[in-house]
């Protein structure tokens, strides 16, 4: 937002109300989900969302490492959000920078708000999110992937956690910003919803929104989250039907 001294601003919204990639203001980018792409993790998911590619894996409940972080009355949740060096235009030095550490923290807290941690005292539930290709909205894509990986790992949770960013583009509130919109937009507001309670477990915002725009952004985000929630459940259902089908086929053989 408002990058100082940045290049000429492209036309982000045309006369027909279409965005730079042809979407309407309330339209999501295409999302495709693959459950359990990895063999070693206890649960995993791969999400392609627009031009984002994000892999998530879950290990646990397992022994806490380092030991002194152990809690006697519940599991601890440790999420690590990391970007591959080649996931962005300018190569990123490997390792967690401050942005990644902050995102890791807010995602950890989002999941701690829904996982039934008290069922697994003295253990750790470790969530790893790897951004392989980035194009705005990676923390939301990471939350979605991690949420599915948790489900795949069989970790008991209050609900899945869909997430999406809402922003302000050419003066209008828009759903699910892509990179150019994020760079030249006027606000960015990523959020994650617990659909059953209707409450937000992640919420960040940067830019300029007046009271009315903020209300509009929250509402649009909730709607977007509910649409993503449907896609998430569909992907899990397809996975378990396929798995179930395979098992039936095996049983019949």
């Amino acid at each position: 937002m408002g990058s100082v001294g940045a290049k000429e601003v492209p036309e982000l919204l045309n006369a027909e109300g279409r965005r730079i990639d042809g979407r309407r203001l309330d339209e999501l980018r295409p999302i495709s989900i693959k459950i359990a792409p990895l063999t070693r993790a206890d649960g995993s998911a791969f999400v392609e969302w627009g031009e984002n590619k994000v892999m998530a894996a879950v290990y646990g409940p397992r022994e806490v490492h380092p030991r002194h972080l152990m809690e006697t009355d519940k599991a601890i949740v440790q999420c690590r959000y990391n970007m591959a060096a080649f996931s962005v235009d300018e190569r990123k030095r490997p390792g967690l920078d401050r942005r990644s550490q902050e995102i890791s923290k807010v995602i950890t807290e989002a999941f701690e708000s829904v996982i039934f941690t008290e069922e697994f005292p003295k253990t750790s539930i470790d969530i790893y999110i790897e951004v392989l290709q980035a194009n705005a909205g990676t923390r939301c894509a990471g939350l979605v992937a991690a949420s599915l990986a948790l489900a795949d790992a069989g970790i008991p949770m209050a609900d899945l956690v869909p997430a999406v960013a809402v922003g302000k583009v050419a003066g209008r509130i828009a759903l699910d910003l892509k990179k150019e919109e994020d760079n030249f937009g006027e606000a960015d507001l990523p959020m994650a919803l617990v659909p059953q309670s209707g409450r937000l477990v992640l919420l960040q915002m940067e830019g300029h929104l007046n009271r009315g725009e903020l209300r509009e952004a929250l509402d649009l985000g909730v709607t977007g989250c509910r649409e993503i929630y449907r896609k998430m459940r569909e992907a899990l259902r397809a996975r378990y039907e396929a798995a179930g089908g395979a098992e039936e086929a095996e049983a019949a053989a």
Partner: protein
Amino acid sequence: MSEIVAAEIQTTHIVDLARSGQRIDGRGLDDWRPVTVEPGFVKSADGSALVHVGASAVLCGVKLETGKPFGDTPNAGVLTTNAELIPLSSPTFEPGPPQPTAIELSRVVDRSIRAAETIDLTKLCVAPAEKCWICYVDLHVLDHGGNLIDTAQLAALAALTHATVPAKRFGVGEADYPLEVAHFPIECSFVRLGDRIVVDPTFEEEAAGQGRITVATDEVGNVVAMQKGKVGAFSPDEVVETVERAFQHGDRLRAIARAA
């Protein structure tokens, strides 16, 4: 009595109080603790302020140096915010590299300053692509009595508001001059205690809280930054409620920061 049990009893007590509109230190749910701002506390800084909010104390020092602009912003200076949760300020802080809490603190303060365009960074450019001012905002937490984010943000704003650009010392001008501050964002944090949402939480209220939300507002009616933190959740209606309350507290605190 185990620490866990003791903490649970205190949490229950704090939440019960909130249900009846009360707080452990006698404040109302929407009251701030006393706020004091001492600008110019540190002479070796180009700008500084010591801010107390109740038992919390944060010292902010601003230093300006000349350096090279970033490649992608050749016409702008650089603003960088750093927070140290030094172990002097709380029994829970340890020496070592910044932990996630310190990183979140510095980034959330930085976000409000940056998003509000508090400093017009193009005015910190000396020679495009060659030389610019680098403005370091260093937050030194001295006493952690809760709500460090707002305490630190107020210290940062006050230190910037009273800062001088050391043009003479760095040989880029005849005389030093005041740093120009264009906007005055104020951060305001809340925690959930049961069904109630209280402003300016103490250390104990933060520990008992089920979710924190911080809202930064500027002086012309914009929300410029938000951050939900800690384990817990807020409904969109609750978010809107905190925004309204943040606008009201913002006006009062802004006056304190600027007047000091």
